[in-house]
């Protein structure tokens, strides 16, 4: 029974990791940039939802519907931010040395963190979503309702992104740019615009996940790094550029971490997940979803 509880805990939080990682995998696959500021988009999404609710209710408390109503705004704000960041800063280093792109995105992450500390202080914050009865108990397994909402929210965000890439014209343009930017340009796709849209979409999904994280965990200006690192692990689990891979990788990472915390100790979670990362890199370097991953 305890193991069932650990697995459920892991799946609930793993879906959020996955929603963060899909954006990371997308930017990597399409723009060919490792975005070290991706975790900061999660943080900014959390703060945007927090402040929207604070403005609406006076305190960062509200019903689940009120919270969900903030999501479109969070997604729009983060989309614009991602788009502008790509157009003004990141686009200038695309195609140069990989270390230059890393330094630029790392610089952006530090700048955002510091600005956030200046603006909102380093105090951790959280959004309170009210439920009459905060958790469900199914066969002895406790499932907090807000975590369940966040789980489905993260799955929906990931699914929308997947469908968007598969079914829409812009989605097809994004995939074309990821496969061959020169050929995409030849057939009339605005490559720069498409890359910026990709950056915007990735930031928007990360921001949406950040808003959910603010309701079940908490947010603070320096929370981003750990989400960026987790995204790395997930992308290796799932395969670069693969959305189903990132979803599976995220759920898997959540379950592995919670099982480790439950059966051994929380102290071992990071060590175990990064050891798994190394083993996977050696044994199955193409990721769980192998070469079939659609970049």
């Amino acid at each position, binding site marked *: 029974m*305890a193991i069932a*509880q*650990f697995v459920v*805990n892991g799946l609930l*939080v793993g879906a959020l990791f996955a929603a963060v990682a899909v954006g990371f995998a997308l930017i*990597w*696959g399409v723009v060919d940039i*490792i975005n*070290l500021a991706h975790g900061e988009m999660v943080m900014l999404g959390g703060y945007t939802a927090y402040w929207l609710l604070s403005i609406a209710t006076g*305190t*960062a408390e509200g019903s689940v519907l009120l919270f969900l109503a903030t999501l479109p705004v969070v997604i729009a704000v983060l989309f614009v931010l991602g788009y502008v960041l790509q157009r003004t800063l990141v686009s200038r280093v695309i195609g140069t040395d*990989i*270390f230059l792109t*890393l330094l630029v995105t*790392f610089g952006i992450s*530090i700048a955002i963190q510091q600005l956030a500390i200046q603006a909102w202080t380093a*105090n*951790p*914050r*959280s959004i*309170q979503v009210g439920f009459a*009865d*905060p*958790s469900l*108990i199914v066969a002895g397994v*406790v499932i*907090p*309702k*807000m*975590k369940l909402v966040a789980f489905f929210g993260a799955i929906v965000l990931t699914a929308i992104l997947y469908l968007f890439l598969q079914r829409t014209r812009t989605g097809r343009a994004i995939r074309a740019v990821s496969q061959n930017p020169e050929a995409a340009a030849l057939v009339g796709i605005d490559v720069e615009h498409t890359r910026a849209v990709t950056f915007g979409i990735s930031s928007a999904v990360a921001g949406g996940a950040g808003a959910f*994280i603010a309701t*079940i*965990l*908490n947010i*603070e200006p320096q*929370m981003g*790094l*750990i989400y*960026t*690192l987790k995204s*790395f692990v997930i*992308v*290796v689990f799932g*395969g*670069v*550029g693969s959305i189903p891979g990132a979803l599976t990788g995220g759920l898997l990472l959540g379950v592995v971490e*919670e099982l480790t*915390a*439950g059966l051994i*100790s*929380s*102290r071992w*979670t*990071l060590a175990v997940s990064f050891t798994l990362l190394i083993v996977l*890199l050696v044994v199955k*370097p*193409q990721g769980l979803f192998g*070469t079939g*991953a659609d*970049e």
Partner: protein
Amino acid sequence: MTSDQNRRTFLKVAGSTGALGLTGLAGCAGSSSDGDGGGEGGSGDTITLGGSMSLTGDNADLGRLYKDSYQETIDRINEAGGVEAGDGNTYELEMVLRDDGTDPSTSRSIYQELIDREGIDYLLGPYASSVTLPASAVAAENQKPMVEGGGASPEIFSQGNEWIFGLLPTANKYAKSYFDMALEQDSPPETVAILAEDDTFSQTTADGAREKIEEEGLELVVDESFPTETSDLSTNLGRVRDNDADILLLCAHQQHNIILANQMESQGVNVDAAMGTVGSLNQSFKGEVGANGDYIYGPTSWDINANFDDPVYGGTQDFVAAINENYGYPPDYHSAAGEAVILTFVNAFESVDELGPTAVRNAIRDADPFSTVYGEVSFGDNGVIDKDMLIRQWQPDPGLQTVYPSSVAQADPIYPMPDWSER
């Protein structure tokens, strides 16, 4: 981009990210600043107390609390006629306090200079454990007593240094009063759960708690440590629930207190009492968790509402009024500890037959408990104040209340705390 290239890119990136991450996590040291100012050495009818303090830099706001408190206390003592020392003479007190910018090496050189050039025999400690530790070594090398109210790391007192006396309870005492309080209730706890962050301070707090649990014959049913980066305590809280712990102790900082309060609700964890060791008494904690923070306890070394007798001010409330009136802010435990630093020296000066660093050091060490605005002061063998923390609790109405010990309590603890289904 092919998959192979992606892998190679990943390896390069993972390596550099790790390095960058570590750089970010490594933190940075405090900045340096010069010390200036001046002061006379001890003259015939004056005793000079000297020290360094964080008067600029990151901790300047806290350093000011000590400075103001020292100055106010010394002024009052002098206005009342000075110190009637045990050698039969009456002395005025004088203070030389120089800015160390919270930099340990600046602080060290200030102390050395105060001793060598100014001939100062009695040292006021600096602020923050990282500065106090090296400063206390200067005191020991030169055999001058140092009394400090700004360093709480047990490391300061584990060096066998006989010249340092500290007024802040060390981390291992943070949880002790919580158990004492719970054990005095009608249905005292039998089982305890500890969740501890794996930083040095929290682990030391947890060590102290484990000792106390063993001493009291309680059963430790959950004892888990988690990394500072942990943002989800659900699995650990599930353990607390499944093992039916009567009371819960979280040895961690504010971030984890917020997670604890919220996840206790969402996970339906019902215990008789729950305490966070650091950051659970801040207004910002309560602001973030709202009603989920009700009934949570926290420790403090001093309470502004307490009323201890004091030979200089009369009592704690007179001290609070004096600081409020003369400096325009309410004092906190730093200020009260600062007052007790001065009184520790005064008490020793009054009890020695002849003034001198060794005699004063011995008098401080052997002093019977004496009352100050900070509470009763006396020191253990290692030089740390023998003082227990006060326990405060967030009560739904009227809010934060001191609930233990009963001599200073504003209200009885609400124990056991109501189950989530009854709130």
